Protein backbone atom coordinates (compact mmCIF):
# COMPACT_ATOMS: atom_id res chain seq x y z
CA UNK A 1 0.00 0.00 0.00
CA UNK A 2 1.42 3.35 -0.93
CA UNK A 3 0.62 6.98 -1.54
CA UNK A 4 -0.95 8.12 -4.77
CA UNK A 5 0.83 10.64 -6.98
CA UNK A 6 0.72 12.44 -10.34
CA UNK A 7 2.71 9.67 -11.99
CA UNK A 8 0.06 7.19 -10.97
CA UNK A 9 -2.63 9.44 -12.40
CA UNK A 10 -0.78 9.83 -15.70
CA UNK A 11 -0.43 6.11 -16.14
CA UNK A 12 -4.06 5.50 -15.17
CA UNK A 13 -5.37 7.97 -17.72
CA UNK A 14 -3.68 5.86 -20.38
CA UNK A 15 -4.80 2.53 -19.00
CA UNK A 16 -8.39 3.63 -18.52
CA UNK A 17 -8.45 5.66 -21.75
CA UNK A 18 -9.90 8.76 -20.17
CA UNK A 19 -8.71 12.25 -20.96
CA UNK A 20 -8.86 14.63 -18.03
CA UNK A 21 -9.15 18.33 -18.89
CA UNK A 22 -6.51 20.50 -17.29
CA UNK A 23 -9.04 22.25 -15.08
CA UNK A 24 -10.15 18.96 -13.55
CA UNK A 25 -6.73 17.44 -12.99
CA UNK A 26 -5.86 18.87 -9.63
CA UNK A 27 -9.27 18.12 -8.15
CA UNK A 28 -9.14 14.57 -9.36
CA UNK A 29 -5.57 14.10 -8.21
CA UNK A 30 -6.44 15.41 -4.77
CA UNK A 31 -9.49 13.18 -4.58
CA UNK A 32 -7.48 10.15 -5.60
CA UNK A 33 -4.82 10.94 -2.99
CA UNK A 34 -7.50 11.09 -0.33
CA UNK A 35 -9.35 7.95 -1.28
CA UNK A 36 -6.20 5.87 -1.78
CA UNK A 37 -4.96 7.16 1.55
CA UNK A 38 -8.25 6.08 3.06
CA UNK A 39 -8.33 2.57 1.62
CA UNK A 40 -4.78 2.01 2.82
CA UNK A 41 -6.60 1.31 6.08
CA UNK A 42 -6.87 -2.30 4.97
CA UNK A 43 -3.17 -2.87 5.50
CA UNK A 44 -3.83 -3.17 9.23
CA UNK A 45 -6.01 -6.26 8.79
CA UNK A 46 -4.32 -9.62 9.26
CA UNK A 47 -5.25 -11.73 6.25
CA UNK A 48 -2.46 -14.26 6.34
CA UNK A 49 -4.50 -17.41 6.09
CA UNK A 50 -7.59 -15.97 4.50
CA UNK A 51 -9.04 -17.11 1.19
CA UNK A 52 -9.99 -14.68 -1.52
CA UNK A 53 -13.77 -14.30 -1.81
CA UNK A 54 -14.18 -14.34 -5.57
CA UNK A 55 -17.84 -15.20 -5.68
CA UNK A 56 -20.68 -14.25 -3.38
CA UNK A 57 -23.23 -16.33 -5.24
CA UNK A 58 -23.40 -19.97 -4.22
CA UNK A 59 -24.01 -20.98 -7.82
CA UNK A 60 -21.73 -23.51 -9.46
CA UNK A 61 -21.71 -25.03 -12.92
CA UNK A 62 -24.11 -22.63 -14.54
CA UNK A 63 -23.89 -23.65 -18.17
CA UNK A 64 -26.16 -23.31 -21.15
CA UNK A 65 -27.02 -25.72 -23.95
CA UNK A 66 -25.20 -25.08 -27.22
CA UNK A 67 -28.25 -23.63 -28.97
CA UNK A 68 -28.78 -20.51 -30.99
CA UNK A 69 -30.95 -18.00 -29.16
CA UNK A 70 -32.71 -14.80 -30.07
CA UNK A 71 -30.47 -12.67 -32.24
CA UNK A 72 -29.91 -8.95 -32.06
CA UNK A 73 -31.10 -7.73 -35.47
CA UNK A 74 -28.43 -5.86 -37.38
CA UNK A 75 -30.68 -2.80 -37.76
CA UNK A 76 -31.30 -2.57 -34.02
CA UNK A 77 -27.57 -2.92 -33.35
CA UNK A 78 -26.65 -0.25 -35.89
CA UNK A 79 -29.44 2.07 -34.79
CA UNK A 80 -27.34 3.00 -31.76
CA UNK A 81 -24.10 3.26 -33.72
CA UNK A 82 -22.38 6.64 -33.86
CA UNK A 83 -21.07 5.85 -37.33
CA UNK A 84 -21.58 2.94 -39.64
CA UNK A 85 -20.83 1.87 -43.17
CA UNK A 86 -21.79 -1.20 -45.15
CA UNK A 87 -23.31 -2.86 -42.11
CA UNK A 88 -20.14 -2.38 -40.08
CA UNK A 89 -19.30 0.04 -37.29
CA UNK A 90 -17.10 2.73 -38.83
CA UNK A 91 -14.05 4.12 -37.06
CA UNK A 92 -11.09 6.21 -38.17
CA UNK A 93 -8.29 4.11 -39.66
CA UNK A 94 -6.83 1.78 -37.08
CA UNK A 95 -3.07 2.18 -37.13
CA UNK A 96 -1.98 0.87 -33.78
CA UNK A 97 -2.18 -2.83 -33.09
CA UNK A 98 -4.14 -4.19 -30.15
CA UNK A 99 -2.34 -4.48 -26.87
Amino acid at each position, binding site marked *: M*SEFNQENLNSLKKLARI*KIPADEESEILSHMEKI*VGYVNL*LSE*VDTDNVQIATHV*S*QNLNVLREDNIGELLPKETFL*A*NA*PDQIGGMIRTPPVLKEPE
Partner: protein
Amino acid sequence: MHLLSAFELRKRFENGELKAREIAEHFLARIDKHSKNLGSFLHVLDERALKKADELDLRKSKGEKLGLLAGIPIAIKDNMHIKGEITTCGSKFLTNYRAPFDASVCKFLEDQDAILIGKTNLDEFAMGSSNENSAFFPAKNPWNTECVPGGSSGGSAAAVSARLAPLATGSDTGGSIRQPASFCGIVGYKPTYGRVSRYGLVAFGSSLDQIGPFATCVEDIALIMEAIARPCAHDSTSISHPPESFLENLPTDLKGKRIGVPWKFLEEMDAKALEAFKANIEQLKALGAEIVDVDLSILKYSIAIYYILATAEASTNLARFDGIRYGVRSPNAKALEDIYDFSRDEGFGKEVKKRILLGTHVLSSGYKDAYYKKAQKVRTLIIERYNSIFKECDLISMPVSPFAAFKFGAITDPIQMYLQDIFTVSANLAGLPAISVPAGFDHNKMPVGLQFLAPQMKDKTVIDAAHAFEKSAKIPTMPEAFA
Protein backbone atom coordinates in the same frame (compact mmCIF):
# COMPACT_ATOMS: atom_id res chain seq x y z
CA MET B 1 -56.04 7.30 -5.50
CA HIS B 2 -52.36 7.84 -5.00
CA LEU B 3 -52.78 7.38 -1.27
CA LEU B 4 -53.62 3.76 -1.89
CA SER B 5 -50.97 1.08 -1.63
CA ALA B 6 -50.17 -0.94 -4.71
CA PHE B 7 -51.91 -3.90 -3.17
CA GLU B 8 -55.06 -1.84 -2.64
CA LEU B 9 -54.86 -0.36 -6.10
CA ARG B 10 -54.75 -3.77 -7.69
CA LYS B 11 -57.71 -4.92 -5.59
CA ARG B 12 -59.77 -2.00 -6.80
CA PHE B 13 -58.80 -2.58 -10.37
CA GLU B 14 -59.61 -6.26 -10.00
CA ASN B 15 -63.02 -5.66 -8.50
CA GLY B 16 -63.89 -3.11 -11.15
CA GLU B 17 -63.88 -0.01 -8.98
CA LEU B 18 -61.09 1.49 -10.99
CA LYS B 19 -60.20 1.16 -14.63
CA ALA B 20 -56.58 0.76 -15.59
CA ARG B 21 -56.88 3.80 -17.81
CA GLU B 22 -58.07 5.91 -14.89
CA ILE B 23 -55.16 4.72 -12.80
CA ALA B 24 -52.63 5.43 -15.51
CA GLU B 25 -54.06 8.86 -16.24
CA HIS B 26 -54.14 9.76 -12.58
CA PHE B 27 -50.50 8.97 -12.00
CA LEU B 28 -49.39 10.48 -15.29
CA ALA B 29 -51.13 13.69 -14.23
CA ARG B 30 -49.33 13.64 -10.90
CA ILE B 31 -46.05 13.08 -12.62
CA ASP B 32 -46.77 15.92 -14.97
CA LYS B 33 -47.56 18.18 -12.06
CA HIS B 34 -44.70 17.31 -9.72
CA SER B 35 -41.88 15.57 -11.49
CA LYS B 36 -40.24 18.66 -12.86
CA ASN B 37 -39.85 20.10 -9.39
CA LEU B 38 -38.76 16.84 -7.90
CA GLY B 39 -36.50 15.86 -10.76
CA SER B 40 -37.63 12.30 -10.22
CA PHE B 41 -38.27 11.22 -13.82
CA LEU B 42 -35.92 11.37 -16.79
CA HIS B 43 -38.46 9.95 -19.21
CA VAL B 44 -42.18 9.56 -18.84
CA LEU B 45 -43.60 6.67 -20.83
CA ASP B 46 -47.08 8.10 -21.23
CA GLU B 47 -47.92 6.49 -24.56
CA ARG B 48 -46.69 3.12 -23.48
CA ALA B 49 -48.47 3.33 -20.13
CA LEU B 50 -51.81 4.33 -21.62
CA LYS B 51 -51.52 1.63 -24.25
CA LYS B 52 -50.89 -0.99 -21.59
CA ALA B 53 -53.72 0.36 -19.48
CA ASP B 54 -56.17 0.16 -22.36
CA GLU B 55 -55.02 -3.35 -23.14
CA LEU B 56 -55.57 -4.35 -19.50
CA ASP B 57 -59.06 -2.89 -19.48
CA LEU B 58 -59.88 -4.80 -22.64
CA ARG B 59 -58.55 -8.09 -21.36
CA LYS B 60 -60.37 -7.61 -18.09
CA SER B 61 -63.62 -6.95 -19.88
CA LYS B 62 -63.15 -10.29 -21.64
CA GLY B 63 -62.86 -11.98 -18.30
CA GLU B 64 -59.20 -12.91 -18.70
CA LYS B 65 -57.16 -13.67 -15.65
CA LEU B 66 -54.65 -10.89 -15.12
CA GLY B 67 -51.21 -10.81 -13.51
CA LEU B 68 -50.06 -10.20 -9.95
CA LEU B 69 -49.41 -6.52 -10.58
CA ALA B 70 -52.32 -5.79 -12.89
CA GLY B 71 -53.11 -2.09 -13.07
CA ILE B 72 -50.20 -0.96 -10.94
CA PRO B 73 -48.00 1.82 -12.35
CA ILE B 74 -44.33 1.15 -11.71
CA ALA B 75 -41.40 3.50 -12.20
CA ILE B 76 -38.14 2.00 -13.43
CA LYS B 77 -34.72 3.31 -12.49
CA ASP B 78 -33.05 4.50 -15.66
CA ASN B 79 -30.24 1.94 -15.54
CA MET B 80 -32.56 -0.93 -16.42
CA HIS B 81 -33.67 -1.59 -19.97
CA ILE B 82 -37.13 -1.35 -21.41
CA LYS B 83 -36.72 -2.51 -25.00
CA GLY B 84 -37.08 0.32 -27.47
CA GLU B 85 -36.93 3.04 -24.81
CA ILE B 86 -33.93 5.22 -24.01
CA THR B 87 -31.73 4.11 -21.11
CA THR B 88 -29.45 6.95 -20.02
CA CYS B 89 -28.05 5.67 -16.72
CA GLY B 90 -28.14 9.35 -15.77
CA SER B 91 -25.23 9.95 -18.13
CA LYS B 92 -24.54 12.22 -21.06
CA PHE B 93 -22.83 9.27 -22.70
CA LEU B 94 -26.14 7.49 -23.27
CA THR B 95 -28.54 10.30 -24.05
CA ASN B 96 -29.40 8.63 -27.35
CA TYR B 97 -29.09 4.95 -26.41
CA ARG B 98 -32.19 2.92 -27.14
CA ALA B 99 -32.34 -0.36 -25.23
CA PRO B 100 -32.10 -3.30 -27.66
CA PHE B 101 -33.59 -5.75 -25.19
CA ASP B 102 -35.75 -5.88 -22.08
CA ALA B 103 -34.24 -6.26 -18.65
CA SER B 104 -35.58 -9.51 -17.23
CA VAL B 105 -37.08 -7.53 -14.33
CA CYS B 106 -39.02 -5.30 -16.70
CA LYS B 107 -40.18 -8.31 -18.63
CA PHE B 108 -41.33 -10.06 -15.45
CA LEU B 109 -43.16 -6.90 -14.39
CA GLU B 110 -44.93 -6.52 -17.72
CA ASP B 111 -45.70 -10.25 -17.77
CA GLN B 112 -47.54 -9.64 -14.48
CA ASP B 113 -49.43 -6.78 -16.15
CA ALA B 114 -47.74 -3.89 -14.41
CA ILE B 115 -47.93 -0.52 -16.16
CA LEU B 116 -44.37 0.74 -16.66
CA ILE B 117 -44.82 4.44 -16.32
CA GLY B 118 -41.41 6.07 -16.62
CA LYS B 119 -37.62 5.96 -16.14
CA THR B 120 -36.36 7.58 -13.00
CA ASN B 121 -33.38 9.76 -12.24
CA LEU B 122 -30.23 8.41 -10.66
CA ASP B 123 -26.63 9.21 -9.87
CA GLU B 124 -24.70 8.65 -13.08
CA PHE B 125 -24.13 4.91 -13.62
CA ALA B 126 -25.45 4.36 -10.10
CA MET B 127 -22.37 5.96 -8.58
CA GLY B 128 -23.34 8.20 -5.74
CA SER B 129 -25.33 8.59 -2.56
CA SER B 130 -27.30 11.73 -3.22
CA ASN B 131 -28.48 11.82 -6.86
CA GLU B 132 -26.34 14.97 -7.19
CA ASN B 133 -24.24 13.13 -9.76
CA SER B 134 -26.96 12.84 -12.38
CA ALA B 135 -25.71 14.43 -15.59
CA PHE B 136 -29.11 16.00 -16.21
CA PHE B 137 -30.51 17.48 -13.03
CA PRO B 138 -30.66 16.44 -9.41
CA ALA B 139 -33.66 14.70 -7.88
CA LYS B 140 -35.11 16.22 -4.73
CA ASN B 141 -36.42 14.94 -1.47
CA PRO B 142 -40.25 15.31 -1.25
CA TRP B 143 -40.03 15.96 2.50
CA ASN B 144 -37.82 18.98 1.89
CA THR B 145 -36.90 19.87 -1.65
CA GLU B 146 -33.70 21.57 -0.46
CA CYS B 147 -32.49 18.18 0.58
CA VAL B 148 -31.18 15.26 -1.43
CA PRO B 149 -33.38 12.20 -1.83
CA GLY B 150 -30.35 9.97 -1.39
CA GLY B 151 -28.75 7.88 -4.08
CA SER B 152 -28.08 6.39 -6.35
CA SER B 153 -31.79 5.48 -6.80
CA GLY B 154 -32.89 8.98 -5.78
CA GLY B 155 -35.42 9.43 -8.55
CA SER B 156 -37.26 6.18 -7.76
CA ALA B 157 -37.32 6.95 -4.03
CA ALA B 158 -38.59 10.47 -4.61
CA ALA B 159 -41.25 9.23 -7.04
CA VAL B 160 -42.68 6.67 -4.63
CA SER B 161 -42.41 8.98 -1.64
CA ALA B 162 -44.30 11.74 -3.49
CA ARG B 163 -46.81 9.14 -4.66
CA LEU B 164 -46.04 9.67 -8.34
CA ALA B 165 -46.07 5.89 -8.63
CA PRO B 166 -46.95 3.32 -5.97
CA LEU B 167 -43.94 1.16 -6.78
CA ALA B 168 -40.52 1.69 -8.28
CA THR B 169 -37.43 -0.35 -8.95
CA GLY B 170 -33.97 0.64 -7.83
CA SER B 171 -30.56 -0.96 -7.80
CA ASP B 172 -28.40 -1.38 -4.72
CA THR B 173 -24.64 -1.84 -4.94
CA GLY B 174 -23.61 -0.33 -1.60
CA GLY B 175 -26.91 0.99 -0.26
CA SER B 176 -28.43 2.69 -3.30
CA ILE B 177 -31.94 1.46 -2.51
CA ARG B 178 -31.88 1.42 1.27
CA GLN B 179 -30.33 4.83 1.83
CA PRO B 180 -32.72 6.75 -0.47
CA ALA B 181 -35.61 4.81 1.07
CA SER B 182 -34.45 5.94 4.49
CA PHE B 183 -33.99 9.54 3.30
CA CYS B 184 -37.42 9.62 1.65
CA GLY B 185 -39.37 7.86 4.39
CA ILE B 186 -40.42 4.80 2.40
CA VAL B 187 -39.53 1.10 2.30
CA GLY B 188 -36.59 0.01 0.15
CA TYR B 189 -35.46 -3.55 -0.23
CA LYS B 190 -32.24 -5.16 -1.49
CA PRO B 191 -32.82 -8.90 -2.03
CA THR B 192 -30.25 -11.68 -1.57
CA TYR B 193 -27.59 -11.45 -4.27
CA GLY B 194 -28.88 -13.43 -7.20
CA ARG B 195 -32.49 -13.42 -6.10
CA VAL B 196 -33.51 -10.93 -8.79
CA SER B 197 -31.97 -11.18 -12.26
CA ARG B 198 -29.40 -8.55 -13.23
CA TYR B 199 -29.94 -9.15 -16.91
CA GLY B 200 -30.64 -5.79 -18.45
CA LEU B 201 -29.35 -3.82 -15.46
CA VAL B 202 -26.41 -1.75 -16.57
CA ALA B 203 -23.69 -3.19 -14.40
CA PHE B 204 -21.76 -1.14 -11.86
CA GLY B 205 -20.33 -3.65 -9.37
CA SER B 206 -21.21 -7.07 -10.74
CA SER B 207 -20.68 -9.03 -7.53
CA LEU B 208 -22.54 -6.39 -5.51
CA ASP B 209 -25.45 -5.10 -7.64
CA GLN B 210 -28.99 -6.19 -6.93
CA ILE B 211 -32.26 -4.84 -8.24
CA GLY B 212 -34.93 -4.23 -5.62
CA PRO B 213 -38.23 -2.46 -5.00
CA PHE B 214 -39.34 0.77 -3.39
CA ALA B 215 -42.83 0.96 -1.89
CA THR B 216 -44.81 2.84 0.71
CA CYS B 217 -45.41 -0.29 2.77
CA VAL B 218 -43.86 -3.71 3.31
CA GLU B 219 -46.87 -5.60 1.95
CA ASP B 220 -46.26 -3.94 -1.41
CA ILE B 221 -42.62 -5.00 -1.30
CA ALA B 222 -43.78 -8.57 -0.76
CA LEU B 223 -46.18 -8.25 -3.68
CA ILE B 224 -43.63 -7.05 -6.21
CA MET B 225 -41.05 -9.55 -4.98
CA GLU B 226 -43.40 -12.35 -5.98
CA ALA B 227 -43.19 -11.04 -9.52
CA ILE B 228 -39.46 -10.35 -9.77
CA ALA B 229 -37.72 -12.88 -7.52
CA ARG B 230 -37.52 -15.47 -10.27
CA PRO B 231 -34.71 -17.44 -11.86
CA CYS B 232 -33.29 -16.17 -15.14
CA ALA B 233 -31.30 -18.23 -17.62
CA HIS B 234 -29.52 -15.15 -18.98
CA ASP B 235 -27.85 -14.37 -15.63
CA SER B 236 -25.38 -16.97 -14.40
CA THR B 237 -25.58 -15.57 -10.87
CA SER B 238 -29.35 -15.87 -10.77
CA ILE B 239 -30.49 -18.29 -8.10
CA SER B 240 -32.88 -20.99 -9.22
CA HIS B 241 -35.07 -21.32 -6.21
CA PRO B 242 -38.59 -22.66 -6.23
CA PRO B 243 -41.13 -19.82 -6.11
CA GLU B 244 -41.64 -18.50 -2.61
CA SER B 245 -44.65 -16.64 -1.34
CA PHE B 246 -43.57 -13.42 0.27
CA LEU B 247 -47.15 -12.27 0.86
CA GLU B 248 -48.31 -15.20 2.90
CA ASN B 249 -48.36 -14.99 6.68
CA LEU B 250 -46.90 -11.53 7.08
CA PRO B 251 -46.50 -11.44 10.87
CA THR B 252 -47.27 -8.59 13.25
CA ASP B 253 -44.87 -9.60 15.97
CA LEU B 254 -41.33 -10.79 16.36
CA LYS B 255 -41.87 -13.53 18.93
CA GLY B 256 -39.08 -16.04 18.95
CA LYS B 257 -36.80 -13.90 16.80
CA ARG B 258 -33.23 -13.32 17.91
CA ILE B 259 -32.01 -10.00 16.54
CA GLY B 260 -28.34 -9.07 16.67
CA VAL B 261 -27.39 -5.43 17.23
CA PRO B 262 -23.74 -4.30 16.89
CA TRP B 263 -23.80 -1.87 19.82
CA LYS B 264 -20.07 -1.30 20.01
CA PHE B 265 -19.86 -0.46 16.34
CA LEU B 266 -22.61 2.14 16.78
CA GLU B 267 -20.90 3.90 19.69
CA GLU B 268 -19.53 6.71 17.57
CA MET B 269 -22.85 7.59 15.98
CA ASP B 270 -24.39 10.98 16.52
CA ALA B 271 -25.91 10.91 20.00
CA LYS B 272 -29.43 11.90 18.93
CA ALA B 273 -29.44 9.39 16.09
CA LEU B 274 -28.27 6.68 18.45
CA GLU B 275 -31.05 7.53 20.88
CA ALA B 276 -33.62 7.20 18.14
CA PHE B 277 -32.12 3.89 17.11
CA LYS B 278 -32.24 2.62 20.67
CA ALA B 279 -35.90 3.53 20.83
CA ASN B 280 -36.48 1.48 17.68
CA ILE B 281 -34.75 -1.47 19.28
CA GLU B 282 -37.01 -1.14 22.30
CA GLN B 283 -39.94 -1.43 19.94
CA LEU B 284 -38.48 -4.66 18.58
CA LYS B 285 -38.24 -5.99 22.10
CA ALA B 286 -41.82 -5.01 22.71
CA LEU B 287 -42.77 -7.09 19.70
CA GLY B 288 -41.21 -10.11 21.32
CA ALA B 289 -37.73 -10.13 19.85
CA GLU B 290 -34.69 -11.10 21.84
CA ILE B 291 -31.90 -8.60 21.28
CA VAL B 292 -28.38 -9.98 21.17
CA ASP B 293 -25.22 -7.93 21.28
CA VAL B 294 -23.03 -8.84 18.30
CA ASP B 295 -19.57 -7.90 17.20
CA LEU B 296 -19.40 -6.19 13.83
CA SER B 297 -16.28 -4.15 14.49
CA ILE B 298 -14.86 -5.50 11.25
CA LEU B 299 -17.35 -3.31 9.42
CA LYS B 300 -14.97 -0.44 9.99
CA TYR B 301 -13.12 -1.74 6.94
CA SER B 302 -16.21 -2.20 4.84
CA ILE B 303 -16.07 1.13 3.04
CA ALA B 304 -12.44 0.61 2.07
CA ILE B 305 -13.20 -2.87 0.76
CA TYR B 306 -16.26 -1.65 -1.06
CA TYR B 307 -14.54 1.21 -2.80
CA ILE B 308 -11.77 -1.06 -3.94
CA LEU B 309 -13.92 -3.91 -5.21
CA ALA B 310 -16.85 -1.94 -6.60
CA THR B 311 -14.61 0.45 -8.50
CA ALA B 312 -12.43 -2.39 -9.78
CA GLU B 313 -15.48 -4.14 -11.22
CA ALA B 314 -16.91 -0.84 -12.44
CA SER B 315 -13.71 0.13 -14.22
CA THR B 316 -14.14 -2.92 -16.44
CA ASN B 317 -17.95 -2.75 -16.66
CA LEU B 318 -17.69 0.80 -17.95
CA ALA B 319 -14.84 0.09 -20.36
CA ARG B 320 -17.45 -0.77 -22.99
CA PHE B 321 -18.49 2.89 -23.09
CA ASP B 322 -15.98 3.97 -25.66
CA GLY B 323 -18.00 5.75 -28.34
CA ILE B 324 -17.40 2.95 -30.84
CA ARG B 325 -20.57 0.87 -30.94
CA TYR B 326 -23.11 3.07 -29.14
CA GLY B 327 -23.32 6.14 -27.00
CA VAL B 328 -22.17 9.62 -27.79
CA ARG B 329 -18.96 9.65 -29.82
CA SER B 330 -16.97 12.82 -29.33
CA PRO B 331 -17.39 15.13 -32.30
CA ASN B 332 -13.86 16.38 -31.61
CA ALA B 333 -12.26 13.01 -32.16
CA LYS B 334 -10.29 12.50 -35.33
CA ALA B 335 -8.02 9.56 -34.63
CA LEU B 336 -9.12 6.33 -33.01
CA GLU B 337 -7.33 7.06 -29.74
CA ASP B 338 -9.24 10.31 -29.51
CA ILE B 339 -12.55 8.54 -29.82
CA TYR B 340 -11.81 6.67 -26.62
CA ASP B 341 -10.16 9.47 -24.67
CA PHE B 342 -12.47 12.29 -25.68
CA SER B 343 -15.75 10.40 -25.68
CA ARG B 344 -15.05 9.10 -22.22
CA ASP B 345 -13.99 12.53 -21.01
CA GLU B 346 -17.03 14.24 -22.47
CA GLY B 347 -19.49 11.49 -21.68
CA PHE B 348 -18.59 10.68 -18.08
CA GLY B 349 -19.10 12.98 -15.11
CA LYS B 350 -16.36 13.56 -12.55
CA GLU B 351 -17.51 10.99 -10.01
CA VAL B 352 -17.63 8.28 -12.64
CA LYS B 353 -14.18 9.19 -13.89
CA LYS B 354 -12.76 9.11 -10.37
CA ARG B 355 -14.20 5.70 -9.69
CA ILE B 356 -12.96 4.28 -12.98
CA LEU B 357 -9.48 5.63 -12.25
CA LEU B 358 -9.52 4.21 -8.75
CA GLY B 359 -10.76 0.86 -10.00
CA THR B 360 -8.07 0.77 -12.64
CA HIS B 361 -5.46 1.65 -10.04
CA VAL B 362 -6.37 -1.11 -7.61
CA LEU B 363 -6.15 -3.71 -10.38
CA SER B 364 -3.01 -2.47 -12.02
CA SER B 365 0.31 -4.18 -11.98
CA GLY B 366 2.19 -3.55 -8.75
CA TYR B 367 -0.94 -2.57 -6.87
CA LYS B 368 -3.29 -5.50 -7.38
CA ASP B 369 -2.04 -7.59 -4.48
CA ALA B 370 -2.04 -4.76 -1.99
CA TYR B 371 -5.46 -3.47 -2.95
CA TYR B 372 -7.70 -5.78 -4.95
CA LYS B 373 -6.55 -9.08 -3.50
CA LYS B 374 -6.32 -7.66 -0.02
CA ALA B 375 -9.85 -6.33 -0.25
CA GLN B 376 -11.11 -9.71 -1.46
CA LYS B 377 -9.55 -11.32 1.59
CA VAL B 378 -11.04 -8.88 4.05
CA ARG B 379 -14.36 -9.43 2.24
CA THR B 380 -14.06 -13.07 3.24
CA LEU B 381 -13.62 -11.98 6.85
CA ILE B 382 -16.82 -9.97 6.65
CA ILE B 383 -18.73 -12.87 5.11
CA GLU B 384 -17.40 -15.18 7.83
CA ARG B 385 -18.30 -12.73 10.56
CA TYR B 386 -21.87 -12.52 9.34
CA ASN B 387 -22.07 -16.32 9.00
CA SER B 388 -20.90 -16.65 12.55
CA ILE B 389 -23.41 -14.11 13.84
CA PHE B 390 -26.25 -15.75 11.98
CA LYS B 391 -25.54 -18.96 13.82
CA GLU B 392 -26.80 -17.17 16.92
CA CYS B 393 -29.33 -14.77 15.37
CA ASP B 394 -32.12 -14.79 12.84
CA LEU B 395 -31.65 -11.17 11.90
CA ILE B 396 -29.41 -8.20 12.47
CA SER B 397 -30.72 -4.70 12.94
CA MET B 398 -28.82 -1.50 12.58
CA PRO B 399 -29.31 2.00 11.22
CA VAL B 400 -29.39 2.63 7.49
CA SER B 401 -27.44 5.84 7.49
CA PRO B 402 -25.59 7.87 10.13
CA PHE B 403 -27.88 10.80 9.42
CA ALA B 404 -31.00 11.83 7.56
CA ALA B 405 -31.14 13.59 4.21
CA PHE B 406 -28.71 16.48 3.96
CA LYS B 407 -28.96 19.70 1.98
CA PHE B 408 -27.68 19.85 -1.58
CA GLY B 409 -24.00 20.58 -1.67
CA ALA B 410 -23.65 20.01 2.07
CA ILE B 411 -21.18 17.19 1.68
CA THR B 412 -18.16 18.05 -0.41
CA ASP B 413 -15.51 15.86 1.13
CA PRO B 414 -15.46 12.64 -0.89
CA ILE B 415 -14.54 10.46 2.06
CA GLN B 416 -17.36 11.89 4.11
CA MET B 417 -19.76 11.18 1.25
CA TYR B 418 -18.53 7.60 0.99
CA LEU B 419 -18.62 6.98 4.72
CA GLN B 420 -22.40 7.42 4.74
CA ASP B 421 -22.59 3.91 3.36
CA ILE B 422 -20.94 2.41 6.43
CA PHE B 423 -24.09 0.57 7.51
CA THR B 424 -25.21 -0.53 4.09
CA VAL B 425 -22.23 -1.75 2.04
CA SER B 426 -21.54 -4.88 4.04
CA ALA B 427 -24.86 -6.43 3.01
CA ASN B 428 -23.67 -6.15 -0.60
CA LEU B 429 -20.24 -7.50 0.26
CA ALA B 430 -21.85 -10.58 1.79
CA GLY B 431 -24.80 -10.85 -0.62
CA LEU B 432 -27.34 -10.59 2.21
CA PRO B 433 -30.97 -9.50 1.94
CA ALA B 434 -31.47 -6.14 3.64
CA ILE B 435 -34.32 -3.70 4.01
CA SER B 436 -34.83 -0.12 5.10
CA VAL B 437 -38.19 0.52 6.75
CA PRO B 438 -39.39 3.94 8.02
CA ALA B 439 -38.54 4.29 11.69
CA GLY B 440 -39.13 7.91 12.61
CA PHE B 441 -37.89 11.43 12.00
CA ASP B 442 -34.88 13.42 13.07
CA HIS B 443 -34.83 16.84 14.72
CA ASN B 444 -35.27 18.43 11.29
CA LYS B 445 -38.36 16.32 10.72
CA MET B 446 -36.57 14.38 8.03
CA PRO B 447 -37.25 10.64 7.75
CA VAL B 448 -34.97 8.03 9.25
CA GLY B 449 -35.02 4.34 8.38
CA LEU B 450 -34.27 1.15 10.32
CA GLN B 451 -32.39 -1.69 8.68
CA PHE B 452 -32.87 -5.43 8.96
CA LEU B 453 -30.49 -8.01 7.50
CA ALA B 454 -30.70 -11.79 7.34
CA PRO B 455 -28.64 -14.66 5.90
CA GLN B 456 -28.61 -15.28 2.15
CA MET B 457 -31.94 -16.61 0.87
CA LYS B 458 -33.80 -15.53 4.03
CA ASP B 459 -35.56 -12.74 2.15
CA LYS B 460 -38.87 -13.71 3.70
CA THR B 461 -37.38 -13.38 7.19
CA VAL B 462 -36.33 -9.80 6.44
CA ILE B 463 -39.66 -8.88 4.91
CA ASP B 464 -41.53 -10.42 7.82
CA ALA B 465 -39.50 -8.53 10.42
CA ALA B 466 -39.95 -5.26 8.55
CA HIS B 467 -43.67 -5.89 8.34
CA ALA B 468 -44.04 -6.53 12.03
CA PHE B 469 -42.07 -3.40 12.87
CA GLU B 470 -43.97 -1.28 10.36
CA LYS B 471 -47.38 -2.33 11.68
CA SER B 472 -46.39 -1.50 15.21
CA ALA B 473 -44.41 1.68 14.59
CA LYS B 474 -47.03 3.21 12.30
CA ILE B 475 -44.65 5.83 10.95
CA PRO B 476 -46.28 8.30 8.59
CA THR B 477 -44.86 7.96 5.09
CA MET B 478 -46.68 10.75 3.29
CA PRO B 479 -44.84 14.07 2.83
CA GLU B 480 -47.47 16.74 3.30
CA ALA B 481 -46.57 18.72 0.21
CA PHE B 482 -47.59 15.84 -1.99
CA ALA B 483 -50.76 14.57 -0.36
